[in-house]
């Protein structure tokens, strides 16, 4: 593995190794505290995403490495018209590894073609966000103890939600997975995911309108935010943003060991009363994200403790 652009770039074995490494980091943090000493991570964030950037930076710091970079396009040479290819090549002369977030789809892939060091896609528009998927997979594995034999529900914006698409593609590779897709008709999973991932591999899935219609079957409920920046029309956003809100009432029929995930930030799609429910693991998920990024940085740099 030289770069991580799309989660499906990883074989199941590579994925398994990464998650195992992350789990070892969780349990033996001191062992890894100087693994990246003398190494530099460049965070090239062409659009603001404070929590993803902080997660990468915290990960590198916990491994004993250093960070440099920019957090918006206006504070970088892109404002002078530099191409992604040139920026990637130049930065790869300074840093040992790059994490790039960009509003345009495919920008990190372009960077990986020109960079002399590993490039991690830290989110490219509405397209891919592989480290969020790694985070989700580690969270499921740590909280459920497995990645197979699961019924996974996705709720909210399943059309523009890239985290949903990536996680579906990843979980579809494990045994005995079924999906329940809960969304308004305007925000259903795109046909290409259904045709080229689910139907192609005969993976069972059903589409429902209401959380209550599916909740009793689920091992995992993955909630998503209806993101304003993915809409061209503000009126559509306002009409749909409050459609699916998870409350304790709606959890009444859920399995006691179901887990609720959310890529965060949440707006109001999960009521605060749910936070103290033992099934809510979305704040633990944030920390798993940091650990899995540590494992990824180490793997791409070819380092071990």
């Amino acid at each position, binding site marked *: 593995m030289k770069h991580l652009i799309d989660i499906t770039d990883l074989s199941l074995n590579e994925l398994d190794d990464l998650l195992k490494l992350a789990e070892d980091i969780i349990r033996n943090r001191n062992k890894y505290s100087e693994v990246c000493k003398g190494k530099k991570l460049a965070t090239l964030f062409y659009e603001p995403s404070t929590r993803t950037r902080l997660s990468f930076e915290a990960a590198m710091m916990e491994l004993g490495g250093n960070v440099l970079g920019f957090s918006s396009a206006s504070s970088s040479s892109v404002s002078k018209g530099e*191409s992604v*290819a040139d920026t990637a090549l130049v930065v790869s002369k300074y840093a040992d590894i790059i994490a790039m977030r*960009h509003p*345009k*789809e*495919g*920008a990190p892939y*372009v960077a990986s073609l020109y960079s002399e060091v590993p490039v991690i896609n830290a989110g490219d*528009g509405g397209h891919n966000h592989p480290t969020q998927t790694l985070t989700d997979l580690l969270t499921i594995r740590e909280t459920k103890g497995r990645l197979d034999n699961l019924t996974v529900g996705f709720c909210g914006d399943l059309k523009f939600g890239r985290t949903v698409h990536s996680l579906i593609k990843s979980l579809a590779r494990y045994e005995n997975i079924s999906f329940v897709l809960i969304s308004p008709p305007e925000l259903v999973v795109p046909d290409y995911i259904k045709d080229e991932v689910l139907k192609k591999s005969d993976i069972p899935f059903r589409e429902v309108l209401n959380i209550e219609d599916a909740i009793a079957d689920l091992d995992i409920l993955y909630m998503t935010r209806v993101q304003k920046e993915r809409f061209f029309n503000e009126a559509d956003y306002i009409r749909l943003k409050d459609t699916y809100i998870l409350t304790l009432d709606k959890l009444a029929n859920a399995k006691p060991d179901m887990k609720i995930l959310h890529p965060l930030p949440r707006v109001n799609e999960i009521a605060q009363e749910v936070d103290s429910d033992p099934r809510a693991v979305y704040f633990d998920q944030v920390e798993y994200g940091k650990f899995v990024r540590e494992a990824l940085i180490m793997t791409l740099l070819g380092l071990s403790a």
Partner: protein
Amino acid sequence: MINVDSIERGIVLDHIKAGKALSIYRALELDKLDCSVAVIINVKSVKMGNKDIIKINDRIDINLDVLGYLDPNITVNIIEDEHSIEKKKLHLPDRIVNVAVCKNPRCITSIEPELDHVFRLADATKGIYRCIYCDALPKRK
């Protein structure tokens, strides 16, 4: 019936879907050739009902990837001494470069014009191509 002379040495593109010859002509940039080119439209065909044919009066290098992407059912006949000496079957190429364009406004190609527009074959049974950068479907140039 219109008679078009046979060619002595060159290439005949046969079994083109009726009405598509001109788009093939443009895609292969046959207008830039010095030799004569015959574009025959709506020829009766036992196999296809109607078809188009293009005759090129020279042995030029045809981009078979472009042709395979546009219509993998076209037959390419190589002609020498007025006889077909080779028939090339086409297939869907794994990648096409600058044959189609990505129209996704969110794709990196929308703001970086120097990037090649590259599509990979995502589904060989359905002949579906997707942009290597953003996974969008292609639009013909």
